């Protein structure tokens, strides 16, 4: 089933935009800009047309575009798989619903991992061409955490796909709900900002933080590695990030097992 998922994802033209964007970025910087070693850190500095671009912002923007492309492109195959016309072909094979569900996640993770490695290699080529080493901890942080960030969105979207049978509805709901993880994770800061001191409301947001897959937590860990290497990783935040993925993933699995085609 993993191979089937990979075949369908690799044929998805929307997802070709992911390496395409990285390729364009590399070509644009190579032709119109440059990369140089950053004297103030172990990192590098990018400039385009003579303007310096803050590396952190550049990487964050690339990650954001990747997330957008992925949440539009990746769920299309699952959306097709749960239509009765496709599900009756798949589930009439010696496949259990559990196998279909979990191998789909494995397939999506493998796909995201492969495309992330390609993207990082493109960035490494860009820096190498300009005589600068791409920091290893940046490469590992992106390769490990970008697929996990994408999976947090995918879990929520899959749940809504199973519940609503609507691709558009599931993608929109899944995207916004997962994005709210930033609000839930930083509940106390947001409440202070708006002058809210209601402890009941704060508790509710804290509970929701554990129920919604926290893409924000994985993004914060990635930033921690960018800034201070692996020693800067908040282990409790990492644990929280994984735990937050469990409730909706289990709910999606339960709903999928009950679904009739």
């Amino acid at each position: 089933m993993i191979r089937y998922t990979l075949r369908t994802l690799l044929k998805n033209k929307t997802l070709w935009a992911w390496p395409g964007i990285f390729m364009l970025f590399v070509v644009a910087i190579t032709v119109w800009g440059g990369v140089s070693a950053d004297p103030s850190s172990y990192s590098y500095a990018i400039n385009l047309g003579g303007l310096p671009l803050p590396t952190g912002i550049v990487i964050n923007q690339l990650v954001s575009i990747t997330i957008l492309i992925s949440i539009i492109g990746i769920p299309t195959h699952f959306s097709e798989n749960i239509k009765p016309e496709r599900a009756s072909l798949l589930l009439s094979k010696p496949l259990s619903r559990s196998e279909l569900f979990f191998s789909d996640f494995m397939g999506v993770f493998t796909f995201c991992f492969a495309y992330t490695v390609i993207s990082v290699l493109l960035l490494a080529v860009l820096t190498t061409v300009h005589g600068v080493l791409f920091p290893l901890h940046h490469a590992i942080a992106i390769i490990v955490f970008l697929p996990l960030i994408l999976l947090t969105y995918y879990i929520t979207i899959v749940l809504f796909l199973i519940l609503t049978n609507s691709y558009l509805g599931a993608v929109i709901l899944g995207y916004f709900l997962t994005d709210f993880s930033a609000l839930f994770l930083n509940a106390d800061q947001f409440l202070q900002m708006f002058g809210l001191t209601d402890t009941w409301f704060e508790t509710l947001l804290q509970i929701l933080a554990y129920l919604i897959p926290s893409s924000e937590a994985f993004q914060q860990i990635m930033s921690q590695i960018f800034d201070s290497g692996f020693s800067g990783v908040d282990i409790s935040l990492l644990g929280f990030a994984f735990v937050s993925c469990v409730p909706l993933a289990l709910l999606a699995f339960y709903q999928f097992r009950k679904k009739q085609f």
Partner: protein
Amino acid sequence: MILQAENISKTFKKSGSNSFHLNIDHLEIKEGSFTAILGPNGSGKSTFLKIILDLLFADSGNISLMGNNHEDKQARAKVSYLPENYSFPEYFTVKQMLHAFADLKESTPGQIDRKINELANAFNVNYLNKRIKNLSKGMRQTSALMHTFLADDQFYILDEPFNGLDAVQKKAIMDYIFRLQQERNISILITTHILSDIDKTCDTLYLINDGRIINSASKKEIQKQFGSVEDYYLNHFETKDPAIS
């Protein structure tokens, strides 16, 4: 026994207060047999096939498929199913689609390309490299049948397999099924509206109406009592216009 279904019931809620009840008291299919389930639209034929394959869940009853409980995935290891409505990835070519689905079954022969070419020859297919989205209805149906017969299985469940096929294609497919029956003693369970397609081929027929099996007969019994499957079917389902009678 390939299939044994006992006391199957399933209730669907329809719009308003209407509901549809499927009640199959007993149905069995023996090894090497060619069985048809016939009935009008909405009588429960496809629903029953989906329950056999655990795509729909029965409210009660027992089904044994290939000697296993039908909910066990192992029960489907040697079973191929062609649904009435299906959807293949549109951007795959026929060959890519066959390869992709072949991965999902262990019973697919090792030399998959050889099997694809064998089926392409048997079904007169010369569009293996054409994308699914560019195929006509008949071509899609033939490709779906290729997908069904790709694995070397023992039991083939075909829901309206001849939809959109011309007479030449139908004959090619029936010839292939006969060959498989002779070579591997396969069993077939088929639903169809085109009675002439199964007139000479079926050993056993079940008539289903409003979710219940109302009659079953062997080929010999039908030939003796009614002459043809069509007459057998019409005898049970034809309603005479009260104005004329």
